[in-house]
């Protein structure tokens, strides 16, 4: 097995690719998964309004008892962020996403609020109610939620103020606080019987497709490519090992690389921050199906790397193509976007031509349906498409390789004709 051993040695002759693409990007996946641990899971979701707590900054320019009460309400119900009351600080908080919602209580708000309530209670034409100023940045859905939460609190505050026009601000606030502690009743229903994979493990396995794609494309390409570089190829052709046996051994070396990469990346998912171990103990079948999906995907970049080597791309160009393909596949299939829901319809149509889209489809089928017959049908169907991609790319590479082996430069029949 000399060619096989050489192929294995070659893997470690490119430690930068191995360390950066497989180890480095794999660990980045772990870091990104860990940084999303704040998102609620089914078990953690509270039956109150705890599911999301947007970061909110309150700028109190009024300083009244009422405005302090409003400030206290936001502190209790959101993730409070301290922002100075300067234009620069407000711009920074917005631009750098320090606060997804900023509330400005204007000067005189407390007096104007009470005045409007008294006017309404007296039955006269209601004095124009003062407005709370709000600033939102990127998170539009957070803004909708925060607008509703604001209306929710101001509504009870206003009713309390109209009902008791002569009460003090403290009394109004206390009554509003009592009311705002009331909640509708909620529960969560499990529509699937099995323990579903946590968001974290799904997120990690989605991300895993990026290091796997980029890393295996570049490594497979340079290993195959090294054996096919001009003089080395000619020398190998003179060896007693037949070309078919040699190619089989090189391919076996690359398959070993695929398996090592897959195993390493799947083992990373077992880290506590990725939730893989928890899933494995709760539902080993689903975990193994996740791992199997990753293994099936791993042969796609293997085929693509082989194709690049047959096209004659060398290290630097393969590296460039691997990066472009890795990023493009990951973006178009929604790996970096948490699914395709954030992509436009046109892009979603394009995504169907991307193998990682189908890989994510297989994961999603497991997340949605567990090991039900319907889910497994969806899972295997999606993975089947990934396998088809791998086969087509591999066949294309074989065809191109066959043609290259017969051209004049390689010493095939056209060379003989030229010599004649």
């Amino acid at each position: 097995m000399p060619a096989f051993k050489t192929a294995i040695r070659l893997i470690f002759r490119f430690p930068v690719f191995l360390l950066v693409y497989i180890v480095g990007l794999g660990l980045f996946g772990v870091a990104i998964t860990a940084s999303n641990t704040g998102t609620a899971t089914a078990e953690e979701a509270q039956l109150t309004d705890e599911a999301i707590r947007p970061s909110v900054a309150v700028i109190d320019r009024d300083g009244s008892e009422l405005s302090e009460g409003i400030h206290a309400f936001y502190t209790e119900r959101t993730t409070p962020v301290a922002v100075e009351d300067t234009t620069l600080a407000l711009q920074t908080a917005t631009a750098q996403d320090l606060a997804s919602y900023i509330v400005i209580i204007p000067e005189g708000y407390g007096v104007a609020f009470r005045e409007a309530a008294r006017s309404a209670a007296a039955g006269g034409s209601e004095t124009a109610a003062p407005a709370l100023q709000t600033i939102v940045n990127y998170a539009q859905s957070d803004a909708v939620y925060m607008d509703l939460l604001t209306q929710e609190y101001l509504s009870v505050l206003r009713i309390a103020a109209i009902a008791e026009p002569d009460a003090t601000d403290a009394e109004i606030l206390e009554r509003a606080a009592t009311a705002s502690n009331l909640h509708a009743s909620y529960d969560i229903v499990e529509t699937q019987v099995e323990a579903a994979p946590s968001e974290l493990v799904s997120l990690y396995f989605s991300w895993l497709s990026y290091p796997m794609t980029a890393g295996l494309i570049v490594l497979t390409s340079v290993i195959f490519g090294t054996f096919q570089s001009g003089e080395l190829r000619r020398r190998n052709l003179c060896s007693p090992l037949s070309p078919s046996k040699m190619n089989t051994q090189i391919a076996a070396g690359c398959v070993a690389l695929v398996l090592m990469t897959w195993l390493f990346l799947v083992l990373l998912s077992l880290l506590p921050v990725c939730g893989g171990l928890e899933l494995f103990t709760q539902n080993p079948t689903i975990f193994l199906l996740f791992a199997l999906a990753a293994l099936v995907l791993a042969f796609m970049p293997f085929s693509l790397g082989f194709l690049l080597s047959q096209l004659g791309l060398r290290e630097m160009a393969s590296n460039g193509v691997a990066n472009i393909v890795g990023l493009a596949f990951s973006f178009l299939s929604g790996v970096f976007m948490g699914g395709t829901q954030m992509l436009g319809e046109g892009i979603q149509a394009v995504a169907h031509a991307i193998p990682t889209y189908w890989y994510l489809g297989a994961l999603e089928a497991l997340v949605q349906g567990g090991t039900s017959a319907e889910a497994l049908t969806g899972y295997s169907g999606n993975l089947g498409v990934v396998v088809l991609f791998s086969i087509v790319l591999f066949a294309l590479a074989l065809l191109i390789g066959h043609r290259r082996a017969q051209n004049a430069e390689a010493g095939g029949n056209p060379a003989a004709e030229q010599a004649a």
Partner: protein
Amino acid sequence: MLTTFLVTLKTLIRDRSVLIWAVAFPLVLSTLFVAMFSNLDELQKLDPIAVVIVEDANYTNAETFAETIDALASEDTDPDAEDGEPLLAPSYVANTDAALTALAEGSYEGFLQVDTESMPHYTMDARRVQSLGFGNPSQSVMQSILDRYVQDTGLLTTLAAENPALFANPAFIQSLTDGSASTPTERISVTANPPSDSQRYYYAVLAFSTIMMTTFALAAIDRVLGNTSPLGARRSLGGQSKLRMLAPTLAAAWLLGFACVLVGFLYLQLVFNIDFGGKEAATVLTLAVSVLAATLLGALLGALPVPLAVKSGLVAPISCGLSLFAGLYGPFSQNLGDWVARELPWLSACNPVRQVADAFFALYYYDGYAQLVPCLVSLLIFSLVFFVASVLIIRRQRYASL
């Protein structure tokens, strides 16, 4: 020196693999990003929440609640919705079993039913609480809607028990029907341009493009040094001093890199109308300084006494790794980058790609140039550090000697 400058320029332009990295890669990524994210801000708006409602006798009797739901399903209740989209998209079923069946289909967030005391109970689909990738704000919005109803009702019930005469006052009853018009909020903007999520991607990709210009300097320096390439060995035998070779080489690498990012910038601005805050001159200056830092980083990498393949292999991981914290890889990496910027600002300050992206942010979001200056100074410091380090490495290298 002019000859060295021109020859370096020509050889770099003729290097196809370098051009793939420096020109094709950023342009392909920019095109991809624009195609993907041009309507991102629209997509981020909350869609009407699909919810099943059990329309039984309790629901029919709870007239006020039913009216609230009807209003949310028909009116423009989302303040950000310019097209008048409602907040709720209800579907009605006869009983709880039918609601559970509908929920199992997977198209709804949950189902809503009303008890005998006209109080709502909301049942969430566990899969919608735990969605792949993101938390689900729809559930929180749903909870907020129901909480408001419960709180208003609870307060009115308490007031009715304490002071029944209050409900005989037509003014009080009238004031209750005024709704949110009486508790207004006013959306204001404090930034020079409106916040846009898609801008983050364009700025990140342009910042990534600038750091990719390390490839030019790396390839050029590799061909100058005697112990890194055969061409460098031959050139070392010439009569020119290292300074006279390095200066025009780096100048050529910078010029080519600057031209490439300028093409990328113009491509984004002219072809796709990407907004850079209307400060084109400052943007071009930022690009020039950014490419200077990238060029000198390339010089540092190129000076390393290791094979070109290893050095070239370092460019992509360094660029991609640094770009991760500049938010190139979507919401997850943006969150991670923002977290690092908040919790470990010194680490963020050590990331030139983040500094470039922050410079574009400064141009877009702030009125003046005060926020741009620290970013540029930071990039100039990077340039100085890279330059000094590369000079130290080049000066200390000893070739084969007696």
